């Protein structure tokens, strides 16, 4: 049976991809942020997953505002990165697992999550930045990848509560797949940042750390916030943190904390990294 080995949270902002493309990781501004990913990479090498499910939002590459699915899942054999218009080099394509994707879509729909299924899906910085953070040191991506996109761009958005429930359904979907696959889930985006308006530049370290602690021990706490409350605290773009709950919902109620890392600011963002391991069943 497929098994969830654990989950990772990470920021996915393009400034990180830009820094990696330019080899700035050891520059003073970036060093502490990037060095904090080394334990993540070690853990991934140890658990050696077959599949990464990347929960992210598209920021205007695959989905334009003509059609905005609230929850969408890639169901293709491969996924391409592409030009987003600001000059960051495009990364190598990603191998998918169509039969597993379709199983997940079917199981989620049977559990009342009406996913949009995508047989062609360009993956933007929200997806490729985490993949590069984890595995750019290898010549090829060592996992098959499945994109799971959540609309966090155009309101009305889904809620933290609903993301957590989706995660629980995703966990059941994964664990009902007969093939012996080791699955890791990336919850990406956040933490606090606001790019727009006169309020641009907010970072709330206290709230970010509260989120990190509660995601580990008491994710239900996060689900009690309305989207307006989350935007007041974490900023209009910081609301991406709801996607962490998809990852968390898929994991066991009690998880082992492998790694906690926080840095701020990177570009305009508070950046939180967690590695949570499912207890061996």
């Amino acid at each position, binding site marked *: 049976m497929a098994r969830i080995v654990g989950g990772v949270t990470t920021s996915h902002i393009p400034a990180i991809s830009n820094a990696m493309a330019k080899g700035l990781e050891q520059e003073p501004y970036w060093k502490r942020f990037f060095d904090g990913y080394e334990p993540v990479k070690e853990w991934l090498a140890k658990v050696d997953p077959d599949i990464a499910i990347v929960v992210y939002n598209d920021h205007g590459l695959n989905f334009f505002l003509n059609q905005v699915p609230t929850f969408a899942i890639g169901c293709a054999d491969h996924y391409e990165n592409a*030009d987003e218009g600001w000059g960051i080099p495009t990364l190598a394509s990603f191998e998918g697992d169509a039969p597993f994707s379709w199983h997940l879509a079917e199981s989620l729909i049977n559990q009342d999550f009406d996913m949009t299924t995508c047989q062609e899906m360009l993956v933007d910085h929200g997806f490729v930045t985490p993949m590069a953070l984890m595995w750019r040191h290898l010549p090829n991506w060592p996992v098959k990848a499945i994109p799971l996109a959540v609309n966090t761009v155009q309101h009305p958005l889904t809620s933290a509560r609903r993301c957590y429930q989706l995660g629980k359904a995703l966990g059941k979907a994964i664990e009902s797949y007969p093939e012996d696959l080791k699955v890791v889930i990336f919850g990406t985006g956040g933490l606090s940042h606001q790019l727009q308006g006169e309020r*641009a530049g907010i970072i709330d370290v206290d709230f970010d750390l509260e989120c990190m602690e509660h995601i580990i021990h008491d994710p239900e706490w996060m689900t009690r916030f309305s989207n307006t409350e989350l935007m007041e605290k974490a900023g209009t773009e910081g609301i991406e943190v709801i996607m962490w709950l998809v990852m968390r919902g898929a994991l066991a109620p009690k998880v082992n904390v492998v790694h906690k890392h926080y840095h701020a600011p990177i570009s305009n963002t508070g950046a939180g990294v967690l590695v949570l391991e499912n207890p061996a069943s």
Partner: protein
Amino acid sequence: MVWQPHDYENIPGTYVFDGQRSHAGYALNRMAFSFNSAANREEFARDMDAYCRKYGLSDEQREAVLGGDFLKLLHLGGNVYYLAKIAVFHGMNVQDAGAAFQGITTPEFQAILDRNATGFTDKLQQKGGYWHG
């Protein structure tokens, strides 16, 4: 035909991108989306005014695009991720835009970010269990 009010409209200095804004900014954001293609970027760079007209921007939107007035573009329904694709033509990144929204310089904007994050390593120690480097 009445746009319904929302509680998030009370957050100061914030333009939550919802149906009403997306409706108002549709042509503008659609033009920005076209900049994912290098050929379209070249066409826009050759004649920005004509390109805005081709995409049916309002006069106000077109003037704000040409003038690089990003706060105005937010008011007119621009989404910040799409505006970032336009900002490139004015030599601006998201930090420059963050400064421009407030009428301050980019170093001043970066100082706000640094101030907001001041002392975070002490807070990590209080919480415990965080990677220290």
